């Protein structure tokens, strides 16, 4: 076997030499034979002739020799390719159209696949990533199911103590920008908080030093930090003696204990890590912990999963889940756990580009079928000359595969551009943490897709073309009165194109309607001329309510003095952002709670509602009187009243936010839009129930806790364009605390725009793909009708000569296109109905079976398809019957 492979390879790689040797060997044979014959007394010339005749055909022998060493297949292949190149170069219009179609389709596939691969498919860059698990609460309700990957401290403690089949660690999914200073250099870095053993569980050994020990990872533990490789290089020039040195983090000295390797990536982008210090209260009282586990070498996945379920069962029994809803802890792959929110949109886009490729293939198959009709004489001649049908099919397939590969090569270039464009447009919003690039994996997938596409669109036309009747094809001279052969395969292709285009158009329509719905939601405030900037207060110097409030008051007083400033306030969480959620109970009125309820919570300085012009509906707003010494008061939103104080007098009700304090509701304000973080009933952006508390009445512990996750925003309304006050705001804060730099200035309009980034991205991309699909389908219809006009010229000429009007002839020609489009739209509606069910999770504010979308897409498609059918049919009007009949 090995000898054969070696001999085959030798033959294949040294083909010119092989041919030369073969010729020399056989020539030598003939000469020797001739010499023998001569020595038997035959005249020299005659001897040579005899020797040659007896040997037989040299070419045939050489051919057989080449077959003997396994060169038959490569030989034929080379012949096919050379012929295919000649054929394709002979019809540049067809080749260009097919390659361009494929380049667009495969380019789109390449670009999207590179993202899908980076996020969903490529293994995580940790050793044995398949043994890494995310621990999630799997909630199963009537309407669907979901996995909650953020858990409370009590779950962590139970898992820490009970999950013996796993090495486990806990970490925070949110990163915070923090101020960093070392050796005189100041920097703004991203910090992630992780528990002891986190890096061990991921399988990462620190490059220098060590990771956090269990002793360091408890409340009140020493202030330590681990640096990323990049930060280590930047701040310490890669000094290996960095361990033990101190850096200033949020105004507090931290000791460096380790540095991570260069290629390490955490679950979120981060520059340094500090101990999480998990606990069951405080931060751990809410669902703020993500838990990662690595399967122990001797444990099986099912075993560990069963154990986790048992560990979680007692805790989940205490959760108020509601009727018909069940929950259990389970293991999901870590990769899936950290990419869960991107999964659906990416799979949707992947399916969409796949459909576009299918439509493209159908289009090219249609073109090939039309071409085969024109080539029937060539093919029949080849068959008549003794070529086998299999050889013919192979030859035609070689042409389409060559087309596929050319299209694939062009598509790879377009895909490369597409990846660049995607990165520019949206990847920062898609929160992709593995690098998206056109690597060999993506290129291999592209090559496979092109090859498959070539076979997909080429196989049927090749088989159909090989079934021609030689005599009919050669005799017909290409001018049959009855027109083309069976037109149905091509018609079927065109109808399917329309159906697939309908699926994409409806999906795009639903996402666009979703986006329009979210975009059109009443903001509930006046976003014009408002600038915002946030400051991280996760800082040791701002551990008390007194310090925080002094910062607010002094900085706001300076900002209000700036020219052009109308009003200014500080708030925790802006509109359109994700807000802090908190538990509370209603203490009096019609509803008194024995179980916790959930709402968004904001602290703010008194002027906030005035700055954003959020209307006060009832009661009063906060004043400076509502300070730390006064009775606790809150203002609630209208959505809060609807959800929790229905049929009740909201004013005067008392709420408890866990501290045992009674807070009185003194006012009701209008709703504003918020990014939703909880509640199945809310879309990605929705007017959520909100409770506002005065910053002056917020306690030390509350400030410390919320500032670990959220940074408050300074909100300033100006008379004119707000950009002019940026420098002044910066100076105002610097004057109060020189160590506090604003993290970035954004206008309120910009924040509103950004909040719908993902929805805008999805809708835009799908709309672009749907437009491409529509274009391809219309080109398909146009091509079909144009082709039938060309093929039926004689028939139409006869009809016109016999007295048919031009309008009748045009109608007869165009009608099949419209009928096919109608069939495609009907089939497409059914398919789109199915597709829209899959898109359910991405659709808001519009029904999955939205009649407006389905109707307008269907009618629009029909209208465009009619135009695409009538346009080529109009050529019939210019036909001169006499000419067409005289035509050969």
């Amino acid at each position: 076997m090995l000898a054969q492979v070696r001999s085959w390879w030798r033959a294949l790689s040294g083909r010119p030499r092989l041919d030369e040797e073969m010729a020399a060997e056989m020539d030598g044979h003939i000469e020797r034979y001739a010499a023998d014959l001569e020595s038997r007394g035959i005249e020299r010339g005659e001897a040579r002739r005899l020797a040659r005749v007896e040997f037989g055909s040299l070419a045939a022998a050489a051919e057989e020799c080449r077959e003997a060493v396994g060169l038959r297949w490569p030989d034929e292949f080379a012949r096919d390719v050379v012929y295919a190149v000649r054929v394709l170069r002979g019809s540049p219009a067809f080749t260009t159209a097919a390659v361009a179609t494929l380049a667009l389709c495969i380019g789109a596939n390449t670009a999207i696949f590179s993202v899908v691969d980076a996020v969903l498919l490529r293994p995580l860059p940790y050793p044995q990533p398949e043994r890494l698990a995310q621990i999630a609460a799997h909630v199963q309700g009537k309407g669907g199911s979901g996995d909650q990957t953020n858990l409370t401290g009590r779950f962590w403690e139970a898992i820490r103590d009970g999950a013996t089949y796993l090495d486990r660690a806990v970490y925070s999914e949110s990163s915070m920008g923090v101020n960093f200073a070392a050796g005189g250099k100041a920097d703004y870095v991203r910090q992630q908080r992780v528990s002891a053993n986190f890096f061990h569980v991921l399988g990462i050994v620190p490059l220098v030093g060590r990771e956090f020990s269990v002793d360091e990872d408890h409340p009140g533990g020493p202030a330590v930090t681990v640096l990323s490789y990049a930060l280590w290089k930047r701040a310490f020039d890669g000094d290996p003696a960095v361990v033990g040195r101190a850096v200033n983090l949020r105004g507090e000295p931290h000791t460096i204990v380790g540095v991570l390797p260069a290629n390490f990536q955490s679950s979120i982008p981060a520059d340094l890590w500090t101990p999480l210090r998990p606990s069951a209260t405080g931060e751990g009282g809410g669902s703020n912990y993500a838990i990662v586990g690595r399967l122990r070498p001797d444990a099986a996945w099912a075993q560990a999963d069963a154990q986790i379920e048992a560990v979680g069962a007692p805790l989940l029994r205490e959760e108020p889940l509601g009727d018909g809803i069940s929950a259990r802890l389970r293991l999901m792959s870590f990769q899936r756990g950290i990419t869960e929110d991107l999964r659906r949109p990416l799979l949707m886009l992947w399916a969409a580009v796949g459909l576009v490729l299918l439509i493209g293939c159908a289009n090219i198959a249609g073109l090939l079928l039309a071409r085969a009709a024109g080539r029937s004489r060539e093919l029949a001649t080849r068959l008549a000359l003794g070529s086998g049908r299999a050889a013919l099919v192979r030859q035609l397939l070689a042409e389409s595969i060559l087309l596929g590969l050319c299209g694939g090569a062009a598509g790879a270039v377009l895909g490369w551009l597409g990846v660049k464009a995607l990165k520019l447009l949206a990847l920062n919003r898609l929160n992709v943490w593995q690098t998206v690039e056109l690597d060999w994996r993506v290129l291999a997938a592209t090559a496979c897709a092109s090859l498959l596409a070539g076979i997909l669109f080429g196989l049927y036309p090749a088989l159909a073309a090989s079934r021609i009747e030689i005599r009919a094809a050669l005799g017909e001279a290409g001018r049959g009165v009855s027109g083309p052969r069976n037109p149905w395969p091509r018609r079927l292709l065109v109808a399917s194109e329309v159906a697939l285009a309908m699926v994409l158009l409806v999906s795009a329509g639903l996402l666009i309607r979703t986006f329009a719905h979210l975009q059109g939601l009443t903001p509930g405030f006046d976003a014009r001329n408002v600038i915002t900037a946030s400051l991280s207060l996760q800082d040791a110097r701002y551990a008390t309510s007194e310090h925080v409030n002094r910062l607010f008051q002094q900085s706001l007083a300076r900002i209000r003095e700036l020219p052009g400033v109308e009003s200014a306030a500080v708030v925790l969480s802006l509109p359109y952002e994700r807000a802090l959620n908190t538990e509370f109970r209603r203490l009096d009125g019609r509803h008194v709670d024995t179980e916790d309820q959930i709402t968004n919570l904001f602290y703010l300085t008194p002027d906030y509602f005035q700055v954003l012009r959020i209307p006060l509906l009832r009661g009063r707003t906060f004043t400076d009187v509502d300070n730390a010494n006064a009775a606790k008061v809150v203002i609630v939103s209208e959505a809060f009243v609807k959800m929790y104080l229905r049929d009740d007098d909201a004013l005067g009700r008392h709420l408890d936010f866990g501290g045992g304090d009674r807070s009185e509701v003194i006012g009701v304000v209008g709703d504003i839009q918020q990014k939703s973080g909880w509640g199945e009933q809310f879309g990605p952006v929705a007017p959520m129930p909100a409770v506002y508390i005065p910053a002056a009445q917020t306690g030390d512990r509350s400030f410390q806790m919320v500032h670990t996750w959220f940074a408050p925003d300074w909100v300033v309304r100006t008379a004119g364009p707000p950009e002019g006050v940026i420098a002044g705001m910066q100076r105002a804060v610097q004057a109060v605390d020189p160590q506090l730099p604003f993290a970035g200035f954004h206008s309120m309009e910009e924040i509103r725009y950004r909040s719908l980034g993902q929805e805008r991205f999805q809708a835009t991309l799908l709309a672009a793909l749907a437009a491409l699909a529509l274009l391809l389908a219309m080109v398909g219809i146009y091509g079909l009708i144009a082709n039938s006009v060309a093929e039926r010229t004689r028939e139409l000429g006869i009809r016109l000569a016999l007295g048919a009007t031009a309008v009748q002839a045009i109608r007869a020609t165009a009608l099949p296109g419209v009928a096919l489009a109608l069939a495609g739209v009907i089939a497409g509606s059914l398919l789109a109905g199915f597709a829209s069910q899959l898109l359910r999770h991405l659709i808001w504010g519009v029904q999955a079976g939205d009649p407006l979308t389905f109707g307008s897409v269907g009618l629009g498609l029909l209208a465009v398809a009619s135009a695409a059918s009538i346009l080529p049919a109009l050529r019939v009007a210019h036909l001169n019957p006499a000419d067409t009949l005289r035509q050969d």
Partner: protein
Amino acid sequence: MGKQVDILQGTLDMLILKAVSLGPLHGYGILLRIQQISRDALQIPQGSLYPALYRLEHRGWIAAEWGESENKRKAKYYRLTALGRKQLKSERKEWKRLALAIADVLAAEPEEV
């Protein structure tokens, strides 16, 4: 020249292996040797000799090398490889079995059936 026999399909390989087992030979030499040993009873169609040689070489049963022939001309010499020797042995055994069986069949008398 005696009466010539057409060579059975498949036996050509065996004859070539046998011929080169006696010493390296070029293509024409193999032809001559088979004719000589069979006293011209076996006539090999010249056109099919080379495909057979390439097939055997491809299978690793014979190996080829360019050398100089008796009259100082370059020629490709074939020799038997170890693999080829084994193959020749097994083919010879097969052939003997076949020949014996056919002889038995042909020698059968009516009453034995």
